[in-house]
């Protein structure tokens, strides 16, 4: 689903062919990216259909089968409460996708709007917005997350907020530099001469033209958000027990019983790496396809 949407948008940027042939071209020219996209789609489907696919209830404890090693009954073994590791990884995919997409979407979108606004108004407004962004850039990310979680408590919405806030200034920086070039183009002057309001020019005329960097940021932030969520959950600042989340699965007992039950520490980490790997693979190829500077080379 995500693949289609993004590649279809890519057509708008390059402006040729139907989106189906674009998808075909993308797969042929960038096999690595296509593999990444397939894994991403699988990941999303697994997240959506977790309740159908998972062999066990991710929260069901089975004290008779604590820390049992991978077997036919439990493909990836069980954890310290006898919960099925595979089922928890499958449900964890739901958490990861939710956090990943929400953070990347809000982070990149709010950032892009701020960046374009800053470039459009230029002068004092630009300087002021840039200084505020500088402050957030210099502010240590983990402290921001710690503070958000201490004030609002743990839970998925707060984790999304804690991860999104530091993403905004980074996205704003990128969007601003692309928008600076657009600002000088005749159609923006034309829109201004036509007497359109600032808001309309920014949202309808300038924002759609920073679509390429926006999509690149979006895919890059997806992977980063999943990694950050894992780190925060691992520290106990993210999603809280008993929700199934990959970072959370690596915490506590996984380290404590690492020698006796290494599957508890290995598989969730592999799930994180694979998911982020696929997003990056796809994002890289998308960047190559969308960046006109790289295209001519």
């Amino acid at each position, binding site marked *: 689903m995500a693949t289609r949407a993004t590649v279809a948008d890519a057509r708008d940027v390059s402006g040729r062919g139907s989106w189906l042939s674009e998808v075909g071209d993308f797969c042929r020219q960038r096999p690595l990216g296509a593999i990444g996209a397939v894994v991403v789609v699988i990941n999303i489907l697994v997240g959506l259909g977790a309740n159908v696919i998972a062999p066990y209830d991710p929260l069901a404890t089975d004290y008779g089968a604590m820390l049992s090693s991978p077997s036919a009954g439990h493909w990836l073994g069980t954890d310290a409460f006898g919960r099925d590791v595979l089922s928890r990884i499958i449900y964890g995919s739901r958490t990861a996708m939710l956090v990943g997409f929400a953070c990347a979407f809000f982070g990149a979108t709010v950032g892009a709007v701020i960046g374009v606004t800053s470039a459009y108004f230029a002068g004092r407004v630009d300087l002021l917005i840039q200084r505020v962004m500088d*402050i957030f850039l210099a502010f240590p990310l*983990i402290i921001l997350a*710690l503070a958000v979680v201490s004030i609002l408590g743990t839970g998925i919405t707060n984790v999304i907020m804690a991860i999104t806030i530091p993403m905004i200034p980074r996205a704003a920086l990128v969007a601003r530099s692309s928008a600076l070039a657009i600002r000088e183009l005749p159609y923006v002057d034309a829109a201004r001469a036509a007497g359109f309001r600032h808001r309309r020019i920014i949202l309808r005329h300038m924002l759609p033209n920073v679509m390429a960097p926006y999509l690149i940021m979006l895919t890059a932030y997806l*992977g980063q958000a999943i990694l950050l969520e894992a780190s925060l959950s691992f520290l106990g600042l993210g999603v809280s027990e008993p929700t199934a989340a990959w970072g959370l699965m690596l915490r506590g007992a996984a380290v404590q019983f*690492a020698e006796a039950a290494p599957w508890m520490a*290995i598989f969730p980490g592999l799930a*994180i790496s694979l998911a982020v790997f696929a997003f990056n693979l796809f994002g890289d190829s998308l960047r190559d396809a969308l960046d006109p500077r790289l295209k001519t080379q």
Partner: protein
Amino acid sequence: MIKYIVKRLLLMIPTLLGVAVLIFFLMRVVPGDIVELRFAGESAFAQKENLDKERARLGLDRPLWQQFLTWMLGIVRLDFGTSMWTGAPIIEEIKLRATLSFQLAVMATFIAVALAIPLGVVAALKQDTWVDYVVRIFSIAGLATPSFWLGIVFILMLLIVFKWLPPMVYTPFWIDPWQNMLQLIWPALAVGYRYSAVAMRMTRSAMLEVLREDYIRTARAKGLWQKLILSRHALKNAMLPVLTVIALEFAFLMGGLVVTEQVFNLNGLGMLFVESVARRDYTLTQALVMLVAFVFIFVNFTVDLMYAWLDPRIRFR
């Protein structure tokens, strides 16, 4: 040039001031304060009088603007005060932790550079061959693997295969270099891999760009050795963006290794961060945030200056 430097230095002040305001109020919005936390451990019914007395001793009863002003005046004189929790001077609290974090950051940088530059150059030279694909997959995997998980895997491997664990207590390098290395090489490797991935990708793309320049073709046409072209003409010009990402990553490592430090049980700055926030040690947290923000801003500034100095095409106004 001097005008530009002065302007950039002056622009640092509002940013740092903003960071100071943000952390000062953020910490005070977080529920609970150090006095409550400390007395909570002693008895369930701490006397309100005692709490107030302690708050007065720490200066927490004064109006917020006064507290902020005192803190700012201290910073201007480079006096960061004492930790609210331990009572020790903050400089002392930070010094030992910073040594560890700094050493780890330096080691990770060495590992990253040693991996990134040769691999990045090779990938660029062999663009779109299997060598390029392998290097790119290796680097994307580096970005995708959480460093803290890689650390857990290292510990597991050492434990299961070699029945050995790295030392748990930090020994400063100047006391016993061997013990020190045995402990720190593993986190350095775990962090260095991700770090090298960032630098490797930058090396590759910068090299690709430079190799298409006219002066490289001229050098080839002159019949110069490939080796000489690479080292003197290509690499030298491709290094600027690589240096930038290395510098920025280094700044991040100084305060951002919270999770990896947790895995390896290292008492670095990251761990101190978590402890100080958990204890609501306002003074210590504030000082740490200012330190990390300053390092970040300063590194950015240095990078920009480096650009102007090394690349004569760039001139700042």
